């Protein structure tokens, strides 16, 4: 299943990959979307940089997966 970025429609193969795109894009509109979902962009980024792996991003990935299912 592919995931479409809710901001710029970029397609990602997994929800975590989509999170990485949104976090990595880093521009204001992507940040605003992330913050609108109850997350704090800067905090997530700071936490992500503390360890290898994807732990911090999994929570946002779950939201994106849920929204994708709702659209289906």
């Amino acid at each position, binding site marked *: 299943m592919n995931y479409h970025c809710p901001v710029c429609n970029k397609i990602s193969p997994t929800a975590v990959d989509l999170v990485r795109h949104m976090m990595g894009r*880093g521009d204001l509109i992507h940040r605003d979307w992330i913050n609108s979902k109850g997350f704090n962009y800067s905090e997530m*980024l700071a936490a992500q940089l503390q360890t290898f*792996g994807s732990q911090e991003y999994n929570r946002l990935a779950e939201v994106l997966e849920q929204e994708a299912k709702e659209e289906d």
Partner: protein
Amino acid sequence: MTEYSVIGKQVHKVDGPAKVTGSAKYTFDIELPNMLYGKILRSPYSHARIVNIDTSEAEKLIGVKAIVTGKDTLGIKHGVWRRFPELCDEEILCREKVRYIGDPVAAVAAIDEDTAEEALDLIEVEYELLPAVFNPLEGMKEDAPQLHEGVERNINVTRHIEWGDADEDFEKCDFIREEQFYSSPQAHVCMETHGAVADFGHDGKLTVYTSTQSNYYIQVLVANMLGLREGDVRVIKPPSGGAFGSKFELDSAQFCASLLSQKLRQPVKIILNREEEFTATKRKTPMYYYVKVGAKKDGTLMAKEVRVITEGGAYTAMGATALTLTGFYSSLPYRWHSYRYDGVRVYTNTAPASALRGFGAPQAYFTGESIIDMLAEDMNMDPLELRRQNAVTPNYEVPGQAFIQSCGLSECYDTIEKYIKERGKLPPNHGIGIGNYGFMSGGIFNWFNTPYAFSAAIVKINIDGKVDLFTGACDVGQGSDTALSMICAEELGVHLDDIRIHADDTDLGPPDLGAWGSRQTLMSGNAVKMAAADAKRQLIEFAYAKLSPNVVYDMDIKDHQIYIVDRPERKASYFDIVKEVIRAREGQVIIGRGHYTPHRKGMVSPAWGFGVQAVEVEVDPETGKYKLLEIVTAHDCGQVINPVAVLGQVEGATMMAAGGAFCEDQPADNGRILNPSIADYKIIRSLDMPKTVGIEVDTYEPEGPFGAKEAGEGLTSPTGGAIANAIYNAVGARIKELPITPEKVLKAIKEKEQQQEQKEE
């Protein structure tokens, strides 16, 4: 190998005679009628609000003509990353707060420098001190002082690059290594400091004479900051005394001189002194690197994950590019099955970090080449063979990022392997370390948001056959004027001394993005070649009609002869044809136009240079001191345009990189740089330099003019890692922080000895 008439020949630089005879006029030498002299007052504090600036006493000083502060500006924040307005964050003359020691707050124009200097002491600035942060790891914390409004956790820029699934691939690895590294700041130490002479005329037009890597950038940025149209700003670049990445952003000398001149309608000269050069101009971006690599036991490099936190300093400058590029270079020059990079740039109350020759690559390769050696040791594998087995190859695509056409890494490995074997068994405490690299030939990203072609050129052939070449490319000592003249001469079939290049003036040449990212040989060179080809076509069309060859034959121009390629005895004089063409076209001169912008060449660069370097060191285990004995670099720069220039680039790049690894640093105390002088900032000197050998590997780059690509900036990349590896091979001491000082080496040796003693116990 193709035989060329001009390309590949050893020629003197076209600007050489002026420089060696002392007749070249640098920015410092420019004197204009009624010219005034300017000085800049800078903040003594790392972070403070400006409460009030009282210039009244300074204005009374005889000889002072004008004083400007932030209130005299339009309040525009500028930046080179114009595509992202939030990254345009620098006012230059601060209006409300200062963010680093050295941030400009006022500028004075006076009849001489001493008067201007004296006036600075009479300007009263009331500050309200604010808490400051100097380390990006601290700056990212939730409770850290905020430098720019609305920028949470001071996270200025983020970058992410990824392909494959690194988490999944690490599961498959037999060997995994995780390490942390630090790469220190470095100053450019150009012989010529930043400076400008600005002349705002009564016609409302501004002329700026300034040492710059990009006339075009300065033209646009100054125009924007002063509320002028770009066409009303003329930037003239005199000969330059070095740049290395420090001179393609709008600096305080350029802006303050322009603002003062605009106010006074008189020329104003501002030349930064050496202390300002060290403390108040941009510097190499310090980086904290966290790297994890994994490989299978058969030697396949599977996964690499990189996290980078950069010390951004007070403003964005070109630091966003350094963050992006270091992330990409961390993946080169290997074929990683998966790769993940997360990088952030964090504002700190220190001098802004930006570009320095290599642009994020030296940092990436110091860490990457060090950890590859560590991994090779874990795997009990020869480090050269591990590299060779996994190196990128010609026509390799870095997934979703870049397409590599020419690549001479294999031949470079062969060359270095041969050198190492010939060295044989080394004496005690000697070690050879290797590092390799891949480097861009110009960047594809248009962060400046220019609507123009990245490079453009105009060729004009005069009635006597002499050629005027107009380009916006900037020669900052690397020899682009000569290289571009050679490309023009080769394409047009004339001699080098037929070409007169005009590359200094925005009023004369078409825009060019300038000298950065190793772009000019390839990008400006392609534009020049196209322009020369356009002019040549006009001559050949006429010669075709005159000589009437069979339609299957081609014609070309070489050595002032226009000839039928398959029947070279049938020819006409270039000089005669030029005259006839001009007459036949009602006296119109022959003009050729060319331009180049990379299209569909990936995300990063249209071409890549590669190389492998071996460094031999001798370490004194009692003191930690070490000597660089020899540095041998096999590099692939495609077709060499000017061999003398390439040799200069090899030696210069090696020296700069060696300095960064060996001794250069900017220790600071609460944001105050402690060594802002040539006496205290240790740079590598001729006595420290080892024997340096550069060996060109023959390749041909289809994207480049006559097969050429970059040579010189990439060569700053491998040295840090190669030195670190050499020291480890000599005495078993692994240093993961630059610069590699004797103190660090000695400490590592002692720690290793203690660990061995503990093991034995």
